[in-house]
């Protein structure tokens, strides 16, 4: 008997039964929040912070199991995962310029150490590996209501913070030295932004899995930067693309029976594929039609 694709009526029926409502809400919400935060991540040239934070979370869960097995001490794996994620994110707010190490390098170090730690600890608790995977990485197909609630809580907090401090944060990333000279709390802004982003990444990874979370944190931001020239427009575009990717990706997966996370990633990448040539053509046209740079000197008379 030939296999037929799911119909719209089946989708509506499932929606009304609430089977995947939380998963779709979670995808759209994570896409919106991470799309927005991802602009700052991309501007900081730290797109792999998501990967490092996820690895740190994995290390935290593995450690919780190891401690339980060998020390008979029960620690909530999710709490340890979040704690290590936040500690990793907090590293990036250190005064790295004094250590002569770039954030990119530190990102690599954090990723490698937590990966190696996860593998080594995992080797001692192999029978628990399945549990670790289940705790860490959701499938994005079915999301628990409490995961959606957690995502809504940390996502709205992170979004609110970034909207409120938008002007200062942008200045602090664009020209941190001048911002510090003018008295802006650059270090605090950086630290808060990193910690909130890490928290969202941890909670979203738990609900949806690594792949879509990484995609939401990178692809909409890159697309927004290609399509718009002003930060508010870039942030709005990135958030919209992220939210639509979460929603559209789930529907694509439902109707064509693909893995959800991969579909959300593909849908998030689609606007980028369009934006790249568009941006290139627009740049060329601007160069062709723009007048030469005006050379009028400033007036000493004010």
């Amino acid at each position, binding site marked *: 008997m030939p296999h037929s694709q799911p119909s719209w009526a089946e989708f509506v029926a499932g929606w009304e039964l609430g089977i995947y409502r939380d998963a779709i809400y979670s995808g759209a919400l994570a896409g919106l929040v991470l799309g927005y935060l991802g602009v700052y991540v991309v*501007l900081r040239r730290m797109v792999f912070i998501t990967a490092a934070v996820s690895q740190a979370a994995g290390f935290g869960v593995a450690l919780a199991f190891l401690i339980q097995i060998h020390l008979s001490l029960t620690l909530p794996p999710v709490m340890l995962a979040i704690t290590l994620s936040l500690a990793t994110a907090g590293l990036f707010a250190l005064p790295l310029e004094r250590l002569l190490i770039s954030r990119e390098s530190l990102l690599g170090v954090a990723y490698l150490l937590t990966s190696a730690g996860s593998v080594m600890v995992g080797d001692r608790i192999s029978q628990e590996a399945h549990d670790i995977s289940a705790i860490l990485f959701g499938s994005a197909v079915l999301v628990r209501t409490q995961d959606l609630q957690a995502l809504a809580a940390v996502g709205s907090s992170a979004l609110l913070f970034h909207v*409120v*401090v938008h*002007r*200062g*944060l*942008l*200045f602090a*990333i*664009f*020209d941190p*030295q*001048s*911002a*510090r*000279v*003018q*008295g*802006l*709390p650059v270090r605090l802004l950086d630290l808060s932004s990193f910690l909130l982003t890490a928290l969202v990444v941890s909670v979203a990874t738990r609900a949806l899995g690594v792949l879509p979370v990484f995609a939401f944190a990178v692809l909409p931001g890159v697309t927004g*930067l290609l399509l*718009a*020239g*002003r*930060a508010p*427009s*870039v942030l709005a575009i990135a958030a919209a693309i992220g939210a639509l990717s979460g929603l559209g990706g789930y529907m694509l997966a439902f109707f064509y029976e693909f893995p959800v996370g991969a579909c959300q990633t593909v849908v998030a990448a689609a606007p980028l594929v369009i934006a790249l040539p568009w941006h290139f053509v627009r740049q060329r046209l*601007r160069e062709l039609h723009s007048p030469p*740079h*005006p*050379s*009028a*000197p*400033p*007036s*000493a*008379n*004010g």
Partner: protein
Amino acid sequence: MTSRPLIRCEQLRVGYRGRAILPAIDVSIGAGELWALVGRNGSGKSTWFQTVLGLLPAVSGSVQRAPDLRLSYVPQRLKLDELFPVRARDVVAMGLERNWSLLSMAGKRRQRARAALQRVAASELADQPFRALSEGQKQRVLLARLFASEPQLALLDEPTSAMDAVAERDTLRLLDTLRREHGTTVIVVCHALGLVREIAEQILFFDAGGSAVISGSTKDVLEHEAFRQNYQSAEAGT
């Protein structure tokens, strides 16, 4: 000129990781003065600059700043991110941020940013993406940001390095106007010795070998033996 000191360096040694790269510096910079920082590349100007700004810790000695001093800084253009999605007037508006003002409403930032751009004859750049500007235009926008911030003490690190000779001259004259009309103290790193002679009242000279830092009136420093040894060939062409 005798005026209330805004910055006083006492036996200040600057450097990195606890190692001084210059001899101790004693200098007092008063309100409404215009100082030029002069020295060859690598002579330690930027290190002193960053220490005075509080971006680097002093190796020893002290930097005393007047209480509630409104500082503003124009960095070397190379340090700014070229990909940022901001227009020229957004960059200028950054000059209006100070301390926790980032939590307040936007207010009249747009008008004040436009006024500052007008001040440096760059009104036509207001809505241009910053990343699309020429290097000289970017420096004018950063100058407008400095004006918008209404500082008591303005520190500029090679603010004219990408400008042509005419724009450079007019920019330094504009800084002189800022000093005269608003009483702003200006400290500027500049390599154009002819303009330094014309505009600066005081010079802090950094010897190329790191063996001496000489401060004083423009006339005295330009006639100093160490200065002459550093700039003999340049002076010949000035």
